[in-house]
């Protein structure tokens, strides 16, 4: 994990009070430059309010926020906002503008010509994995995942070192969400921006954040640290209950399943005395696993282990009753078997090597 000395954003004694409630109280927080910092916590804990105070969509009641050392009130709010990307839960695209025009919003505000804005938009569509053919479409013609990618592209168009994201993937379906999360990690490696990311999902925070700020009721920060610190040593009962009991499992999200041995599919044919004896793997014409047959009943679905998957995904792919799981190749074809013994052993080794203890 890259370490940097400088802070991109600093909250200094920030309080936000509404008429009858305190959303954020005495917040002091330094967000490191060039990393992804996740704000996580239950709803109503002030994480979104804190994010929106960075670009002054919400003005703090007390305290100040420094952006690269400079008070964020030292210039007009609209100028500050143009200098940082903002992605929200619903893409919030302008329905009357084409995809390309939506992406080019900030460059055009900053005086770029129509042609420059357009070519910038097309570049960014490549960056976020959108087909250039969509450039002339209107938002109503996009799927939720596509709209969200347009939202990300629009935020990147500001070309700013800071990107603010408010639950950017919580409104898309889980498959698309995983895609977009991976895309974000890739984008971050490529662009090295400072990203502040709000989520209520601790799994998402752990998967994406280099740093995690766990917010508790009343806008207090219960713990700030790396995901591993927070999972290994929760600062208090609130954090412990929020990160949950299966945090040992979550940690396996960090560990690659690359080293796991794959056994040949033919092993399934050896049924004598095996735990998978009554089960037969179904494979469709394309070679993709289609489910299992169990005493004349067909059971479709089941988690598959894809290349590049983590140990946690490997564990999910191995039903304990069968003691084997199915691995697929990049095209989704069944490529081999995972043995639960191998997966459990690898998980144990991972724990010992990482923390020097067996749990």
């Amino acid at each position, binding site marked *: 994990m890259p370490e940097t000395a400088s802070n991109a954003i600093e909250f200094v004694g920030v309080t936000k009070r509404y008429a009858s409630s305190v959303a954020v109280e005495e917040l002091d927080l330094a967000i490191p430059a060039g990393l992804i910092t996740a704000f996580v916590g239950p709803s109503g804990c002030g994480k979104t309010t804190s994010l929106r105070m960075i670009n002054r*969509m919400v003005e703090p009641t007390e305290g100040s926020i420094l952006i690269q050392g400079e008070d964020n009130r030292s210039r007009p709010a609209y100028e*500050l906002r143009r*200098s940082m990307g903002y992605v*929200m839960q619903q*893409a919030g695209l*302008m*329905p009357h503008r084409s995809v390309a025009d939506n992406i080019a919003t900030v460059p055009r*505000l900053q005086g770029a010509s129509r042609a420059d804005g357009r070519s910038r938009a097309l570049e960014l569509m490549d960056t976020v994995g959108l087909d250039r053919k969509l450039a002339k479409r209107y938002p*109503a013609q996009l799927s939720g995942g596509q709209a969200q990618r347009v939202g990300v592209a629009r935020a990147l168009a500001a070309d700013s070192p800071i990107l603010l994201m408010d639950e950017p993937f919580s409104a898309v379906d889980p498959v698309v969400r995983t895609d977009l999360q991976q895309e974000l990690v890739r984008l971050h490696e490529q662009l090295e921006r400072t990203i502040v990311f709000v989520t209520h999902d601790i799994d998402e925070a752990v998967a994406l954040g280099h740093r995690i700020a766990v917010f508790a009721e009343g806008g207090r920060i219960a713990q700030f640290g790396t995901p591993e610190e927070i999972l290994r040593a929760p600062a208090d009962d609130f954090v412990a209950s929020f990160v949950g009991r299966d945090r040992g499992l979550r940690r396996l999200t960090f560990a690659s399943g690359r080293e796991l041995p794959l056994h040949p599919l033919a092993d399934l044919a050896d049924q004598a005395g095996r735990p998978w004896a009554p089960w037969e793997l179904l494979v469709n014409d394309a070679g993709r696993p289609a489910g299992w047959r169990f005493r004349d009943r067909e059971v479709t679905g089941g988690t598959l282990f894809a290349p590049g998957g983590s140990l946690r995904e490997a564990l999910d792919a191995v039903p304990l009753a069968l003691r084997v799981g199915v691995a697929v190749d990049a095209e989704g074809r069944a490529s081999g078997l995972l043995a639960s013994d191998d997966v459990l052993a690898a998980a144990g080794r991972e724990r010992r090597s990482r923390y020097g203890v067996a749990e």
Partner: protein
Amino acid sequence: MAGEVVNVLEQTWQWFADPASWEGAGGIWSRLLEHLGYSGLVLLIAAVIALPLGILVGHTRAGGNVVVGVAGALRSLPTLGLLTLFALWIGLGLTAPVMALVLLAIAPLLTGAYAGISTVDPVVVDAARAQGLTEWQILTRVELPVAVPVIFGGIRNATLQVVATVTIMAYIDLGGLGRFLIDGLAVRDYSRMVAAMILAAILALLLDAVLAAAQKLLSSPGLSKED
């Protein structure tokens, strides 16, 4: 009875067919022009008052209840009654009927502008603000373009009502198609009254078609593709 109706329609047709009905100071063409002129004047004044007000209230979302209440109250006022009241108050002439008709037109224009702007998805407005658009840019580049169909709905509605109601101008001796109604009634020439109704209806439909075309021209194709 049925025979009389056929008779009136036949006479109406004959009146339309007579070139003399169309020409001269009291002819169809000049009455149509007067009617158009009055309607245009009324709509222009009403638009100058109602559109900015509706847009402002829609943008700030403050005072929306007042707008809805005022528009409802205006709708319930009988225009002929207002005309009589204003005429008694400020005398005959153009001012009294124009005032009465402006009040009639304000309601649909005001509600159209207010509803158009205030129903723009707040998420879209929030996103625009977060990208760094100024309030003026949010209004002119996001809210107004998105609200075009609804605002035009109000304008078209007002136009239909005004074109139909401008006929009452003849009640206080002004021109327009209402002349044929009032004068026809005075001499029990029902065919001319029918003709006036037909002409007013055709004029209203033509104007609506022109406004519909303008609306289509000004609306982004992205708006009509929304589900």
